[in-house]
């Protein structure tokens, strides 16, 4: 008895010791926002509607994507642990709000969680996720969706129409401190109608060539989990892992602050046997190790501490892991090169036009001609990469067919700089104005791995009399700098998701440049302040662009949209505030041979091999390989090049 009591006390003590983190989250006063949400539904009754099944339009053409080919391979084996590198420890487990859009979020949201339906990575048609089937109704500008009644959250609670209604409330509240989401959910949708627990329709303001995508790519949120959303949302939900539709869940004890995160495959995942999903998410445990230093990641890969390593950089493909590398030659590490076709991340120099001097178009044009990207592509990337033409390449006919990035040309650069008053070279060869102002700008970047690109550009720009002060920051600090619009010129790119046509509002609309860019009279507001936390990295505010963007948003004919997109690209090109850099029309991978892939390796529109989680870990092969390594037994060399989707240069 005494013994038992002692044991009990001890356990309590230990529990108390462990529970300190939990206590921090429990310290918040409990809130129930159900009434607030209901009140919001009522005051916005035109948006949150209820309907009866009899009201359904009769001529609906239902689609269910059932005929689309499977994603993944039936040969895939479940099980095993995969070790993956994480560049930085997540700053939060929230998927929305400040600091949430980091390198960790794809693991719990973007790449793993389920939307109503997903684009097939080969055909771009939709295959079902949380939806059973869907239909577009042209008259009411709505998409009707029947939800899969089997769908549940990872905590077992069924997903119903109410979760979708709640999602709209959530993304429209100011609690989440995410203006982009506020704007998107207020302006891009006009209503949600609940017909039954598993039948909804969502309306959008204008029909689009891809009307269905805006609705089908919605991901619901668990209302029962977010019932405590309020003023302290950011702190309260900072380290809470939300019930998810994804195959992977995160347990509290698997979060080792600053060191690693482990995701576990949900054994009760509702979609485990669903077509298009059953051969994916094969690995039982994904162990994400925080390794910040790039050079160290490669060494970790060579040691076998992590299983796969992207070889996109020429340095790795040709120098560090060539065919002659002992592990490659022995067949322990396999290499793959896959050409894809998709929107290209716009790597280039984003010029902040709010900064003095950079607001001068002549200077921007000079910078365009003083930036030698071709040299970087030819000599640093060894000709593997191609020159980007605009900020929106890879969108098929929506991308401008004729615009070409301006080439490196010292004479023309000098002519433009001269027009801006920089007509004499100083003692160090950098151009100056008569009053001694030097032609020097800071080029910042969060890409530590690409810092050499900037030093090459710096050397070449000096020939044109332009000085680039290179500032290499770590990824988070670099992104913070541009989000606060503190930069002169920033070298960066956006990861574009797979969409039919490019977005312009985010990057080019004046609403995202300034608090109030123009006065009501249409004149430029002299007191305008740059707006932080937006993707308008150029602080670009042109009224003509604003008009076209709004037209583009409301346009339903795809031909008209193409015309508008081209016009906007031309205007953007003329404004010269973005120096297009490079894109890679492929991805390359090195992986240990126990990581297996389907026969075709990847998909036409995929951005990377891990994106669709079609690979698996073969534990038997792992044992065999590790033993072979000890006994110096070798396997056949594996180099596969998949160029069926290669773009003509």
């Amino acid at each position, binding site marked *: 008895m005494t013994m038992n009591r002692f044991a009990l006390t001890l356990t309590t003590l230990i529990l108390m010791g462990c529970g300190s983190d939990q206590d921090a989250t429990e310290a918040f006063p409990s809130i129930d926002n159900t009434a607030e949400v209901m009140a919001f539904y009522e005051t916005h009754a035109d948006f949150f509607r209820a309907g009866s099944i009899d009201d359904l339009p009769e001529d609906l053409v239902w689609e269910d994507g059932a005929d689309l080919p499977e994603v993944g391979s039936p040969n895939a084996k479940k099980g095993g642990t995969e070790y993956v590198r994480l560049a930085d420890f997540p700053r939060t487990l929230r998927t929305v709000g400040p600091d949430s859009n980091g390198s960790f979020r794809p693991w719990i949201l973007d790449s793993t969680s389920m939307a109503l339906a997903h684009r097939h990575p080969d055909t771009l048609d939709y295959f079902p996720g949380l939806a059973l089937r869907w239909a577009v109704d042209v008259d009411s500008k709505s998409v009707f969706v029947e939800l899969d009644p089997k769908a549940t959250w990872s905590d077992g609670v069924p997903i119903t129409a109410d979760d979708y209604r709640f999602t709209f409330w959530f993304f429209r509240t100011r609690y989440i401190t995410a203006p982009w989401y506020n704007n998107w959910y207020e302006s891009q949708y006009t209503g949600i109608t609940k017909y039954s627990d598993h039948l909804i329709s969502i309306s959008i303001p204008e029909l689009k060539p891809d009307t269905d995508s805006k609705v089908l790519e919605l991901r619901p949120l668990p209302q029962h989990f977010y019932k405590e959303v309020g003023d302290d949302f950011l702190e309260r939900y900072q380290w809470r892992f939300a019930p998810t539709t994804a195959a992977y869940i995160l347990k509290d004890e698997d979060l080792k602050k600053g060191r690693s995160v482990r995701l576990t495959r949900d054994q009760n995942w509702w979609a485990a046997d669903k077509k298009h999903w059953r051969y994916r998410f094969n690995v039982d445990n994904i162990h994400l190790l925080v390794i910040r230093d790039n050079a160290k990641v490669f060494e970790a890969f060579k040691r076998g501490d992590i299983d796969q390593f992207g070889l996109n950089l020429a340095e790795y493909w040709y120098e560090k892991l060539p065919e002659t590398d002992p592990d490659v030659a022995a067949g322990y590490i396999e290499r793959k090169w896959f050409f894809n076709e998709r929107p290209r991340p716009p790597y280039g120099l984003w010029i902040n036009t709010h900064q003095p001097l950079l607001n001068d178009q002549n200077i921007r044009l000079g910078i365009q001609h003083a930036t030698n990207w071709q040299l970087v592509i030819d000599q640093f990337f060894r000709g593997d990469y191609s020159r980007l033409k605009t900020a929106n390449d890879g969108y098929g006919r929506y991308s401008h067919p004729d615009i070409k990035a301006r080439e490196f040309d010292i004479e023309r650069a000098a002519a433009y700089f001269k027009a801006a008053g920089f007509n004499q*070279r100083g003692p160090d060869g950098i151009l100056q104005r008569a009053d001694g102002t030097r032609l020097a700008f800071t080029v910042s970047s969060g890409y530590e791995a690409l810092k050499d690109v900037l030093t090459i550009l710096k050397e070449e720009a000096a020939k044109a009399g332009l000085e680039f*002060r290179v500032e290499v920051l770590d990824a988070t600090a670099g992104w913070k700098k541009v989000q606060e619009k503190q930069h002169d010129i920033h070298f960066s790119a956006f990861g574009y998701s797979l969409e039919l046509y490019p977005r312009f509002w985010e990057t080019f609309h004046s609403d995202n440049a300034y608090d109030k860019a123009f006065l009501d009279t249409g004149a430029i507001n002299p007191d305008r302040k740059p707006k932080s936390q937006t993707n308008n990295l150029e602080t670009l505010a042109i009224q003509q662009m604003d008009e076209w963007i709004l037209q583009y948003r409301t346009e339903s004919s795809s031909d008209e949209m193409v015309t508008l997109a081209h016009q906007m690209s031309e205007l953007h090109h003329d404004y010269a505030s973005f120096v297009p850099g490079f894109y890679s029309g492929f991805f390359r991978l090195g992986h240990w041979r126990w990581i297996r892939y389907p026969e075709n390796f990847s998909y036409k529109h995929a951005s990377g091999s891990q994106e669709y989680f079609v690979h698996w870990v073969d534990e038997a092969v792992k044992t065999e390989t590790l033993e072979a390594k000890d006994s110096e037994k070798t396997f056949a060399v594996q180099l596969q090049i998949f160029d069926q989707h290669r773009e003509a240069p």
Partner: protein
Amino acid sequence: MFNFNPQTQKKLARFRKIKLGYYSFIVLSLMLALLSVAELLVNSRALVVQYEGALYFPTYTEFHPGTEFGLDYTYETNYRDLAAHFDQTDSSNWVLMPLVPYNPYENDATDSIMRPEAPNAARQHYLGTDTTSRDILARLVYGTRTALLFAFAFMVSVYMIGIVVGCAMGYFGGLFDLGFQRIIEIWSNIPFLYMVIIVFSVIPAEASIPARITLLLLVMVLFSWTSMTYYMRTETYKEKSRDYVAAARVIGASTQRIMFTHILPNVLSTLVTFMPFTIVSAIAAITALDFLGFGLPVPTPSLGELLKQGTANLRTAPWIVTAAFGTLVLILSLVTFIGEAIRESFDPKQFTLYR
């Protein structure tokens, strides 16, 4: 102030007798002399250009655009190409290039592909090139120069503060001593590395490279002067009770005079023995900071940056790490040898009456 009295001369003679330290001193001095005119030895600018009868000495002057030598561009002349051009055109013009005709910033890829290239005497890349085809020897020379300059400036500043504060504490004693000791204890507990990181994150990017280096120096000095005060304080305490100090005070010498003219020369031997080790730690610190990415801004050549590149390309380009590591070992060994020799020759125990 510091006349070489017979005792000092004796110490110097002893120092000369310690061969390892003495030769190290000569080698290091020679290195410093060469480094101070590094522009004449390692540079993409020519030493002398003879063009159309006129002589040009571009090393330390303003830049000469290509047009000045009949080339078709307005940016800085590429003197290596100019030399080749003169050779081909068979003119009487000529160019004299430095021993290593590269500056530490330019990319010079042999086959138009930037990658580390092994040492190649024919192309005058005597230590090879780094990942973006920059000459390693050039980067080493300029990086070492910055590190050494930095270390000397660091030592001088640290000692100035350390001596003044330490002497004052020892000489005045009492409450002043007590109070200052507490302040120093608190101050020396502020983590130095975090301060550097914090300060560096708030420097505006517009700051020029020399300004950034000065600021780094300032921060390092600000957090390193404390250790010196301990030695100075105790030494001064000891000397203060000697008769000659009392005599000086009786004559009516000022406090300042007693501290700096009478006491300081007598405690100097302690200081001198510490100097080389301070330099070693300063070089190590700046290299470490660079390695961590908090030191000199990209693309300034530095030992730390080269070491980092070297470790990142350990398998594929071992010559990078060898060069950087070799240089570091060489310099640190030289300074340490000198330090050992100084310590030995200046050791007061050799001459003390109490032996």
